[in-house]
């Protein structure tokens, strides 16, 4: 009864009799869509510090029903220094850990990876693992042995709003560049009081920000190291692998936004505007897009 064919037939029959409970497909489709749709108001961050005080300089939208503990009350940790990544950032990490209990169910998957990342960053050993810090075009690269890649869905930036390109041009203080190679973006968002404009095409994201004065993003990198390249005459940095990305709000060095996983990214600067193009897997294509920026 266990002749070869017989066993394969039995396995197929067994497979058919196995039940895997799954939610109604329409519900799954709706949930996925909700996560893909550009949020008009930020969804609840999974790991968010408790919010005792608001941050006036971060105009966070409260247009649609803010959930308790949303960045509507952009958190301040009093001892957080202005320098990103200082000890305050580490304490913030612990705050986020304590607040982890409020994580939504879906975010629970991400939580363990993030906890591990925060723990790594919070211990002396974790700090020692940061071998080099490179600052370029408003982005701080921390190279070393990063913790596990943060997982989960990107949260919106503070005050992220969906706008038209024309509205965006009025709301940001720098000229918005458009890559001709991609055509019109399918979506435009402005965040943090006009500090960052994000253009979207399916699978691609181009963030533009004033990169001349302050750090806007921090990237946690391990090998392979960023590769220096060039867009026209300007230097550019290419990060070929997925890495952790943290947004550093205008209000100070503390990032209330948890790190998110970011895809391969090209970073360069056009005059004072920093640009980060995310989602192109190949450097040649990324450069092609970058060179087409007008």
């Amino acid at each position, binding site marked *: 009864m*266990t002749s070869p064919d017989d066993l394969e037939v039995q396995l197929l029959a067994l497979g058919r009799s196995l039940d*895997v409970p799954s939610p109604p497909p329409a519900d799954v489709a709706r949930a996925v869509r909700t996560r893909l749709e550009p949020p008009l108001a930020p969804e609840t961050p999974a790991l968010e510090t408790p919010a005792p005080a608001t941050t006036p300089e971060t105009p966070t939208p409260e247009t649609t029903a803010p959930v308790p503990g949303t960045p509507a009350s952009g958190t301040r940790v009093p001892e957080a220094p202005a320098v990103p990544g200082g000890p305050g950032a580490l304490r913030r990490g612990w705050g986020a850990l304590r607040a982890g209990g409020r994580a939504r169910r879906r975010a629970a998957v991400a939580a363990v990876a993030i906890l591990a990342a925060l723990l790594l960053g919070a211990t002396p050993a974790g700090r020692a693992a940061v071998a080099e810090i490179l600052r370029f075009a408003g982005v701080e690269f921390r190279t070393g042995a990063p913790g596990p890649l943060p997982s989960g869905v990107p949260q919106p930036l503070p005050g992220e709003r969906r706008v038209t390109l024309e509205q965006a041009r009025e709301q940001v203080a720098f000229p918005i560049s458009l890559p001709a190679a991609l055509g019109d973006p399918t979506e435009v968002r402005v965040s943090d009081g006009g500090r960052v404009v994000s253009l979207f095409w399916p699978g691609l994201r181009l963030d533009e920000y004033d990169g001349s004065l302050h750090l806007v993003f921090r990237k946690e990198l391990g090998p392979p190291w960023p590769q220096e390249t060039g867009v026209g005459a300007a230097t550019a940095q290419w990060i070929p692998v997925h890495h952790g990305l943290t947004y550093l709000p205008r209000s100070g060095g503390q990032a209330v936004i948890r790190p998110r996983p970011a895809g391969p990214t090209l970073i360069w600067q056009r005059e004072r505007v920093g640009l980060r193009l995310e*989602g192109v897997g190949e450097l040649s294509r990324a450069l092609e897009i970058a060179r087409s920026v007008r």
Partner: protein
Amino acid sequence: MESLTTSAKEPPTDDDEAITRSLAGDLDAYEVLVTRYSALAHRTAAMLGAADEAEDVVQEAFVKAYRHLVSFRRDAHFRPWLLRIVANETHNLTRSRGRRDRLAARLTETVPAQGEGPEEAAAAADQRARLLDAVRTLPERERETVVCRYFLQLSEAETAQVLDLPVGTVKSRTSRGLARLREEVARDLT
């Protein structure tokens, strides 16, 4: 990038059209794809070890698939491409938990075959349960290929793509797995 075409207005009928329109940012079209593959994606995640977190894995996989849709080769099939993302997400989860992945599924009450008495039905159910146990105890590599080939009913080529293995490896792991199952089943019967 040439696939950034304008979206049509009718609901998409096949994968290809749904993908073309999703690439153009049409989330209605992508919902159609999600709906179509949701059950299979859950089954894949659960059987490859996501256990009770299959729902999270599947959502994440669909979100990632959408964001990486530009890298999908249009002459390929969507199903194994998607399931590979599901499999990767499942592996990431089980690795991050440092736990051995489990095959999560339960046997359903099956309708007894025609002319099958209660006794035979019970024996058949028992046999299925023992076979499932045997599959569960297979070494991970062999179990994965057996799960893909027989429980998910994927072809050898699809299994190769989903597990990111050469087809030859799929063949050899499957046959090793089958040989081991045969031994186990034979041992149970003695």
